[in-house]
């Protein structure tokens, strides 16, 4: 593993910036749907700016179609933004000019991310293209050890491994070249809860050891919150709230973020549980987003002003931003734990 040892307790400013997304926009043209008229445009990512420092994790949450995966593709350089820029690495070069192994990615389905005809060792070594053989072998050994896989597994093929082991191989492959940044796109979503916890622990430990920064994309708030230092909630191509992870427990301000947070199961926690905020409708498509606030059609507290005027992303504190005309207008409420009795239908 290369990468600097970053001792904890280092002041934020001294951590080098490894990701700077500046006002990035990505629009897709869709296929024609009628003989006349324009081809519809998808506003997948619509003016997003985020920054991330070494050794830190940014959690990106949102539902299907919010643009989080498109943002992931911009960060890894798989797609070029329509406008704006994405700078990566300690030297802050444009990602579209070739990331040079400085940005790696781990995806949701490890089985399809691994070549079924390649052994584990070969798959990991592939990421070390130009490295001489003895050096390469040594680093593959290190990577296997780092993700907690016994060396004898290196000779196996992906189908001989369990899902959790496959995902460890993917992580080893992402780590082995010593990247500055790893994109984790729903990286634990296909794993069982106890396995998720193991893999998240592993990721946290590796981050402490190598100082690699993570961008963790998921629809599952719980998993993201556990390892993230900062969180951003996306809705229809925009960030609607960005906050330090600690603020995500009680100090959420955007109604959509509050609704997402309310879906976390608070299983009889401390005698009280959080009431589910049930939103109307479903995540809309990013074709022709609404004129005012994009969340207004589903928002329980929206008024005419919200439907007309699009809100800006404004600073609440230095590291907490929100895009809402009525921040804090919807809050989490707790209900008593008597869910069983108040269900009715027993009488």
């Amino acid at each position, binding site marked *: 593993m290369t990468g600097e040892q970053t001792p904890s307790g280092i002041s934020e400013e001294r951590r080098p910036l490894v990701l700077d997304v500046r006002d990035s926009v990505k629009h897709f043209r869709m296929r*024609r*749907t*009628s*003989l006349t008229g324009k081809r519809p445009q998808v506003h997948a990512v619509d003016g997003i700016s985020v920054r991330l420092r070494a050794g830190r994790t940014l959690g990106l949450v949102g539902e299907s179609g919010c643009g989080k995966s498109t943002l992931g593709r911009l960060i890894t350089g798989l797609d070029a933004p329509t406008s704006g820029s994405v700078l990566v690495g300690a030297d802050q070069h444009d990602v579209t000019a070739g990331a040079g192994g400085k940005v790696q990615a781990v995806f949701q389905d490890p089985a399809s991310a691994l070549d079924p005809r390649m052994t584990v060792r070969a798959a990991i070594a592939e990421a070390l293209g130009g490295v001489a053989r003895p050096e390469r072998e040594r680093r593959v050994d290190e990577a296997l050890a780092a993700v907690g896989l016994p060396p004898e597994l290196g000779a196996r093929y992906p189908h001989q491994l369990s899902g959790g082991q496959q995902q460890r191989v993917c992580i080893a492959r992402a780590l082995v070249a010593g990247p500055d940044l790893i994109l984790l796109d729903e990286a634990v979503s296909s794993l069982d809860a106890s396995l998720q916890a193991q893999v998240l622990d592993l990721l946290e430990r590796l981050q402490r050891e190598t100082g690699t920064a993570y961008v963790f994309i998921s629809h599952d708030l719980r998993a993201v919150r556990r390892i993230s230092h900062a969180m951003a909630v996306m809705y229809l191509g925009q960030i609607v709230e960005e906050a330090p992870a600690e603020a995500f427990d009680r100090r959420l301000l955007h109604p959509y973020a509050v609704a997402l947070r309310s879906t976390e199961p608070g299983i009889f926690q401390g005698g009280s549980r959080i009431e589910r905020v049930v939103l109307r409708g479903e995540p809309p498509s990013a074709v022709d987003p609404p004129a005012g606030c994009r969340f207004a059609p589903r928002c329980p507290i929206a008024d005419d002003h919200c439907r007309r005027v699009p809100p800006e992303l404004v600073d609440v504190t230095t590291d907490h931003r929100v895009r809402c005309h009525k921040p804090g207008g919807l809050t989490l409420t707790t209900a008593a734990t008597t869910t069983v009795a108040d269900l009715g239908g027993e009488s």
Partner: protein
Amino acid sequence: MILYLAKKLTSAVGVLLALSALVFFAGRGLVPGNAAAVIAGAKASPETLAAIEHKLGLDQPLYRQYLDWLTGALHGDFGVSPLSGQDNLQVIAQQAPVSFELALMGLLIAVAIGLPVGVIAATRSGKGLDWGIRIPLLVVFAFPGFVSGSVALYLSAHFLTNLYSASYIPFSDNGIGNLQTMLMPALAVGIPTAPLVAQMTRSSMIEVLAQPHITTARTNGIAEWRIRYVYALRTALPPVLTLIGFIFGFLVGGLFIVEEIFSLPGLGRGVLASISNRDFSQLTGQALVIAAAFILGNLLVDIALPFVDRRIINR
């Protein structure tokens, strides 16, 4: 839906144009010898040859010849055969209906046999009956056309004499007589084609029967026959239909063995005659009709598909 149809029509016309160019240039440009040399005979002087070439327009640049021919063809003028003096259109207009009818009847027979056999084989997949069906199918499919044709001819000439007719009877003259004459040739075409349809139906059905919505239909107590012949078969139909569209075009152009055996004046025999006569003016017309049959088969299937599976419009 309108957009979908417009797309399919445009592409059909485009493909037809491209094919017409291909057919024309392949006929005129690549094959050695031309009609002028055939007409003039081997001992003709260069002057006579040039005069004949001029008369036929063969001295023009190739693209001009193509444009002239295309404009003519669009007006229904396929030219006059410089060899026989016959109007090409008239010749083709006599041959094409024979082949189209034979291909269509053969196809209907192939579908009537292949579809149910495929469904039955799929529902018994891997069991004895599945193999009991598939092995004979493979044997039939491996039959060359002249074997099935000869068998059919032998049967009709010896045992089904009322179906046998030594010469072709046009449909317009005697509809029933025509269908009787065509039945044995159509069987000779359809039976060896049926395994193709059966095989595609079987594999498509096996895939669909494993899909979760079939389990759901079962969980809801829907009758098994309805699950097979409505829920599964309809879902499995699109690839089968696509194949059928291809087979139609394939048959129209590939009937010469059966036509020869049953002495039917179809396109297949016509093409052979044109080739042996080096009559490229007629051959291009015939090739164009065969190409059009391919395109027509595919177009009809494209139009039918959205009625079977609505998702196809958005693809």
